[in-house]
């Protein structure tokens, strides 16, 4: 449905591009998890899709049509639920929905029906007469989502929709997002919570420094289920230890931590026994399947971004 190809963008009066050569796709019925540290370029991509930024280089298309044309003719095909509470705090829940429904071109019975459906979807019926400013964090997030869904968009952009909400609201929101995709919408979901992405994303794109670092399904990105051992070892010199570990699989090291992706016939216990037999003192060891957080940290490195 959505295809971004070689998108590059540089903000005025900055030398470093915010995006360079970004390509990704989002399909109907799927949740695309968009991950990246602060300043990676996520917001710049969302700003392009919401129409706030014009394409400088590359292309963005919706079902083969340029984004600018789609936005001009049918802007409500794409909806954005920004990270901020993008509604009027002094208006009630239903007044907010009325206002944005009309702004999205809905009217008459259709408008009332969509307001009712979105209130029900976000389970906000009991709070219809409550002013936005008096809602809890979780309810505000749900109202933000309900407003985005009013015009029945085909592509929904959710920018960190669970920031500052309690676990119950988070579980509700994740379930709601999954439902949207199951109903046929294409969803792009950005978050810093890796477990959320793992829970709902069908595909994951990790970006950093304005570039796509990896793009694929979770299974593809997490190595197809191979076991990884992570450990720190004292008492054995680095060259000797690397040679030893390479007998068990692919070896990476990050500062003092060693990571070994075990080949098919090797086991973690055999690896640890071999290290100890070589005189190594194991300070800590973890093993199991790779997870998204490890992948994310490995790809984006650990340096602070803000």
């Amino acid at each position: 449905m959505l295809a971004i190809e070689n998108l590059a963008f540089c903000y005025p009066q900055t030398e470093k591009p915010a995006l360079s050569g970004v390509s990704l796709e989002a399909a109907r019925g799927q949740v695309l998890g968009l991950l990246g540290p602060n300043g990676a370029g996520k917001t710049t991509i969302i700003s392009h899709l919401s129409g706030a930024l014009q394409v400088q280089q590359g292309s963005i298309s919706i079902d083969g049509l340029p984004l600018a044309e789609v936005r001009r003719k049918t802007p409500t095909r794409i909806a954005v639920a920004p990270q901020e509470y993008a509604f009027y705090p002094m208006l009630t829940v239903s007044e907010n929905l009325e206002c944005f429904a009309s702004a999205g071109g809905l009217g008459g019975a259709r408008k009332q029906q969509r307001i009712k459906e979105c209130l029900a979807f976000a389970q906000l019926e009991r709070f219809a007469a409550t002013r936005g400013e008096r809602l809890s964090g979780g309810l505000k997030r749900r109202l933000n989502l309900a407003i985005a869904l009013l015009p029945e968009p085909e592509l929904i952009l959710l920018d960190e929709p669970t920031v500052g909400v309690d676990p119950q609201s988070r579980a509700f929101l994740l379930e709601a997002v999954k439902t949207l995709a199951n109903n046929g919408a294409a969803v792009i979901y950005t978050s810093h919570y890796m477990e959320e992405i793992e829970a709902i994303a069908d595909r994951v794109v990790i970006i950093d420094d304005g570039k796509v670092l990896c793009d694929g399904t979770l299974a593809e990105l997490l190595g197809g289920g191979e076991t990884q051992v992570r450990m720190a070892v004292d008492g054995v010199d680095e060259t000797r230890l690397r040679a030893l570990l390479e007998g068990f699989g692919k070896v990476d090291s990050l500062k003092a931590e060693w990571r070994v992706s075990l080949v098919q016939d090797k086991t973690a216990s055999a690896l640890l026994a071999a290290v100890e037999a070589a005189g190594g003192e194991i300070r800590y060891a973890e093993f199991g399947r790779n997870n998204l957080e490890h992948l994310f940290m490995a790809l984006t490195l650990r340096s602070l971004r803000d």
Partner: protein
Amino acid sequence: MLFALIKKELLALIRDVHGLAALFLLPTVFIIIMSLALKDVYSPPVKSLPYAVENRDNGKLAVTLVEEWEKRHGKPQKYSADGKPPDNWKAAVQSGKLSYALVIEKDFSNVIVDEKLADGIRVRLITDPGLDGSAFAANKAELVMIASEMRAQALLAMSRTQLAQQSQMIQQAQQARRQPAVQPSQPPSPKASDVPVTVTAQALVDSERLAAGSRPTAVQQNVPAWLVFGMFFVVASLSNLFIQERQCGALARLASLGVPIHVMIWSKAIPYLWINGLQAALMLAVGVWMMPLLGGDALSLQGINWGALALVLLGVSMAAISMALALASLVRTSAQAATIGPVVNILMAALGGVMVPKFVMPDFMQKISEFSPMNWGLEGMLDVLLRGSDMAGVVQPVSRLMGFAALMVVATAILFRRRVN
């Protein structure tokens, strides 16, 4: 779409108690306080008022009167480039450029020294209705005083001359008879002492303060001034909501839903046109009905041209709203809006003759004052409420206000687009 956004704007405004207080309570309180405070006490700034003189007599005493007036009030304004006086002084003064005109009629120099003081007005003082009542009274009293002093001096000089002539005649007669001088038992001038002579020149002076059937009062001055000020105060509440919805992303959300920029701008302008209309109705009602209850003078709307009033109010409202939109689009934070908006308003009010009447200001300040949109609005209101202008008579201030509004709307469209994105 537009209706929904207007409804949103009105709901937001109604729920902003502080904003409502600033829009309605502040100008009402100003009108009441200033009107009562200035009801009786005023120090007329008569020495610096712009005026013109036409001397139709050109006799010696008429020239003396003009010179004396110039000594006290400075040089008069020129009536026109060719030096030709206007056909109608009332119209010239009502235009608002002059505070008053002094017209000395033919035969003034002869009549003022005539002992019998012939009937008929010989000096006219034609005054702008916008001039404070005390200033008008002071000018009139001063003119009568100068004319009376001139008449007294002239009569005294004549009396002395007659005395000297009679005394000389008596001496000549005594010398001719060679008789010792005798003290006259009778006053030498039966003519001068027996016939009462009116010294005051009050009967020669006519003073007129132009108005549309009503007399200017502190209320008549303060209601238009503070109404204009209050209408410009929409900047505070309008920019506050604008920044709030910009910061929370609601404006970007509207833009992403395809709401055109001009609809967003109109949805903000239209509610405030209504608000300005309500403000005008309330302030005028306070002047007409509430001020008399508080012991002040009543605002008189008798004989005014309602179409002209509506036109001026529309001009003020459009100028105020467009400036509010431009300022709201210019500033980045609520703190900036809360500071810049009121400061700009107060400066415009101070310069525009709202806080300090324009005629009190020195010349260079009066020229600066003419650049303030509040001054255009105030002059337009005074044209209607005091000078009896019709719709044609307020074209100039209304055109300025509309031109200013057009400029501000263009600036708003450019800045608004940038802020939304």
